[in-house]
């Protein structure tokens, strides 16, 4: 499947539209704030349109994962090729984009959350031009990670995310922004260095034979790295179940675990969330965290099936700890935003537990949970933002009885809250159910302990609902205005999706089912 618009592939458009938007934003005069905002809306809106086209045209029967032929919307060009440097043979870095059932959902999520983030950024008044330029750069980085199939390209996009995020938290953030920004930067940069070294080790261990010339070519192509035949004799990461392979797996895992964030690498997240402005929290929880679990599925699992199977139990345990620990921490918060930040840790733990099950149910549940969590936390962070805009406080104990004053807001926020809680009929339930179902087949005890996290979740969510929406209204919170039309526009698509996918999730499951079943099969065979 290929699709080109004006001679340029659809995925390239999808990735670089925000960059085009960024350049326009930079050229616009500083004073013309609305033009800047509308440019951002148009750039991300077009992305949503393209994502819609991809959703419509995507062939649900093709597997992808490790088969280059069955990737869709593929674009591959040679980017850097250096003929025969004596020491490494031919160097090949390619511009290789493509999507399969694993990434298509993430592409849709990114474009959707990207647009909603722009809409909710409307009331940012400080340095509007710089804000939207960085925001659009951030969207490009995230989208790029989800569609690259070349490790080098993957790495570049991965690191491109860092700087805009650093500035967006550091300039537009709350009182402790400097601390939160540098903490985020350092955590993810540590992961980046680990990934860089592993990437180089993989590069020198993998070489495929070019069918045209018979030359042995070192490559960053992720699909070639999945094929055990391509590992060179005596390479650092060649062989099966070697110590170096375990070390490499661990380095990559730490990198991705920092992004997820998995216990014990999670401490940057609450700080970053609390200090970040609302739209950036939405992006952070909605898309950025998914990069971690996506990386595990795209890189760790298929390239190191042996090491994954060796460490999978360990992963499940970390997932379990994250679920319980995140939920318990959330229970203890009296800052609304911090509560949702910890609930994210808990919910991402479910993803990790689900994919660690290494069976189709768990895997499908995990990936679906990535998507659903993206939507649900986006709603929750937007809900916090609404309250914060009106009152400039996020303390849970500062509110009460909001249901009477802001009925529309209460209705919408409640849907989000209950979806997070896992109420049947809303989307969170479906994915949590699948994840735990899959995990139960693989690890009975771990899953049984992990499920208790759901009870704690119910506890803190209901308590929050009680503290904010019910009860007596404090005197200084009497005149809160209900949602503006702009806010409703930001919420609407997310609420529709929450309900729709709760009742009828199969359109989304169909998208990924084939690919994930193939991944499971590939993994259980150990990649051979």
């Amino acid at each position, binding site marked *: 499947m290929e699709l080109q618009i004006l001679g340029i592939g659809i995925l390239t458009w999808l990735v670089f539209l925000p960059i085009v938007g960024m350049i326009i934003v930079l050229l616009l005069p500083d004073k013309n704030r609305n033009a800047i905002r509308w440019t951002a809306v148009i750039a991300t809106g077009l992305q949503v349109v393209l994502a819609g086209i991809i959703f419509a045209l995507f062939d649900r029967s093709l597997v992808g994962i490790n088969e280059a032929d069955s990737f869709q919307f593929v674009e591959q060009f040679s980017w*850097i090729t250096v003929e025969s440097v*004596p020491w490494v043979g031919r160097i090949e870095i390619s511009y290789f984009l493509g999507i399969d059932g694993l990434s298509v959902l993430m592409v849709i999520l990114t474009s959707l959350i990207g647009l909603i983030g722009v809409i909710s950024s409307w009331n940012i008044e400080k340095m509007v031009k710089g804000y939207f330029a960085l925001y659009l750069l951030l969207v490009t980085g995230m989208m790029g990670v989800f569609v690259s199939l070349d490790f080098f390209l993957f790495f570049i996009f991965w*690191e491109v995310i860092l*700087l805009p995020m650093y500035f967006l938290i550091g300039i537009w953030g709350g009182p402790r922004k*400097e601390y939160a920004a540098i903490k985020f930067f*350092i955590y993810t940069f540590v992961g980046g260095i680990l990934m860089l070294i592993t990437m*180089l080790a993989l590069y*020198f261990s993998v070489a495929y034979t070019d069918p045209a010339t018979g030359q042995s070519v070192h490559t960053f192509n992720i699909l070639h790295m999945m094929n055990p035949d391509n590992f060179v004799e005596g390479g*650092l990461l060649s062989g099966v179940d070697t110590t170096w392979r375990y070390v490499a797996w661990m380095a990559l895992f730490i990198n991705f675990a920092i992004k997820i964030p998995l216990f014990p690498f999670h401490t940057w997240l609450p700080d970053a969330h609390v200090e970040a402005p609302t739209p950036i929290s939405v992006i952070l929880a909605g898309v950025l965290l998914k990069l971690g679990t996506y990386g595990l599925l795209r890189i760790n699992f298929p390239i190191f099936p042996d090491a994954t199977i060796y460490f999978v139990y360990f992963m499940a345990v970390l997932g379990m700890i994250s679920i319980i620990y995140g939920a318990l921490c959330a229970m203890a918060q009296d800052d609304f935003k911090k509560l949702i930040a910890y609930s994210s840790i808990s919910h991402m733990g479910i993803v990790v537990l689900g994919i660690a099950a290494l069976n189709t149910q768990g895997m499908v549940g995990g990936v679906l949970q990535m998507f659903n969590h993206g939507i649900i936390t986006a709603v929750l962070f937007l809900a916090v933002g609404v309250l914060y805009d009106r009152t400039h406080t996020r303390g849970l104990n500062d509110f009460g009885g909001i249901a009477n004053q802001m009925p529309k807001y209460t209705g919408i926020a409640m849907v989000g809250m209950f979806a997070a809680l896992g109420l049947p009929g809303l989307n969170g339930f479906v994915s949590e159910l699948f994840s735990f179902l899959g995990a139960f087949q693989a690890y009975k005890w771990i899953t049984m302990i992990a499920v208790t996290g759901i009870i704690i979740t119910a506890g803190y969510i209901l308590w929050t609902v009680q503290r904010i929406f019910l009860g007596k209204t404090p005197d200084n919170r009497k005149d809160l205005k209900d949602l503006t039309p702009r806010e409703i526009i930001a919420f609407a698509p997310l609420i529709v999706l929450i309900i729709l996918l709760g009742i009828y999730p199969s359109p989304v499951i169909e998208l990924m089912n084939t690919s994930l079943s193939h991944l499971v099969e590939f993994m259980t065979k150990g990649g051979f």
Partner: protein
Amino acid sequence: MIEHSLHSLSQFYPEIVLVLTLCVIIVADLLVKKESNITAYIFLGGMVLTGIFILLQSGRIDSVFYNMIAVDPFAVFFKALIVLTGIFIVFFSLQSRELEEYKSRIGEYYMLLSGMVVGMMLMVSSTNLLLMYLAFELTSISSYVLVGFTKETPVSAEASMKYIVYGAVSSGVMLYGISLLIGITGATDMYGINEALNAGINQPVILNLSIVMIVVGLGFKTAVVPFHFWAPDIYQGAPIPIAAILAVASKIAAFGLMVRFFLVTFMDAEILITSGAWEVLSGVHWNMLLAGMAALAMIIGNLTALKQDNIKRMLAYSSIAHAGYILMGLVIVAEEGLASIMIYFCIYLFMNLGAFYVAMLFSNKLKTESIEQYKGLGFRAPLESVGMTIFLVSLTGIPPTGGFIAKLYIFSAGVSAGWIWLVAIAGLTTIISLFYYMRVVRNMFFYKPVGEETAISFDMGAKIFLFVLLIPTLLLGIYFEPILSFAKDSVLMFGM
């Protein structure tokens, strides 16, 4: 005899042009009015002409003046980088506020600068230990004076004094090492020494001692740990253009010399690899020694930079750390290391000069070099601050900037040669470096301006020159094939 000399002269045009420039500057300085910039333009013209002659030499492999000087792609590459730095330094100097106060002596300044550049060009191309030492001294002596050029500022005078003391001692030690080496091998040119070593010399103690002494001299020039103590004081005291040339060109020259000396002298003549020849020096594991020096430079350079408040001092420690990364390339003695050193220098030139340049622009206007005083500059001078951010991000090594490609190649050479522990240290120290580079960025953007809040404006020339440094820094991060092939073609060294 005559023919050889004539032929040699024809291969020596770049250096001849530069020496002539030097003479013209002296004469012009006597004749024209003191306050004009004429000497700067003469120097600039001379440098451009030299650059053209250097490029004409590309691809040639020859040895001239009776094995004194090699004309090979390796030398051409390094000479081209040195001249390019020299050209950039002219633009620095023209805009420097510090030099403005010494306008009447500016002829001297460019005269010394030409002397320094000639010295550096000879350093990378000499194949004879005596010439090597003379070139080394020519560079050093010119730079002693240049460091103290703004002599009425006490720190500048002090820096110059310190530099002379350090420089004199270390070059003395190096000269002693050279004399020992010449004494036991009976030859002054590297090929002769190489032959003698391959033939077998049974003096391991003296041999090792002489090498250690030579390493002291070279370590001083490259400012790697433990010979780095001079660098911060000298960078801080010297005028910024001179600090910049010391951090870039002087380092390039010293590394060029170091690589040539080690590779040619200790190469195994039979199999043309370097590893075999190291064994001549039994008793000392040279790779390990250099690796240790590299690791120390990375660790100490980066850790000490954390605490600095003066931007020049911070950049001094950062350049010590970068010397460590580059030294990593030398540890991997084979071609892969060589090519990665060359790529590193190519990119390092732009990003480091860029950082010094913006520091100078700020110092011109703010009259301060303190990083704490940079607060709020992002709002007062947005373009320059964004430029500074990109240079610092590049120095850290984050894609998509050139610095990432530089680090990538050094790291990949390390990984492919199996020096995993060294690469791990390099990775860790890179993370440390993030703190101090980002501190500057944080101060510029995350705080409100202290005191004055008015916008700072810079003239058009300053902006254009900023872009001249900025564009390659960014472009090389995305499209680096040209320098890759350039470096690949230049690893060829005469006699190897």
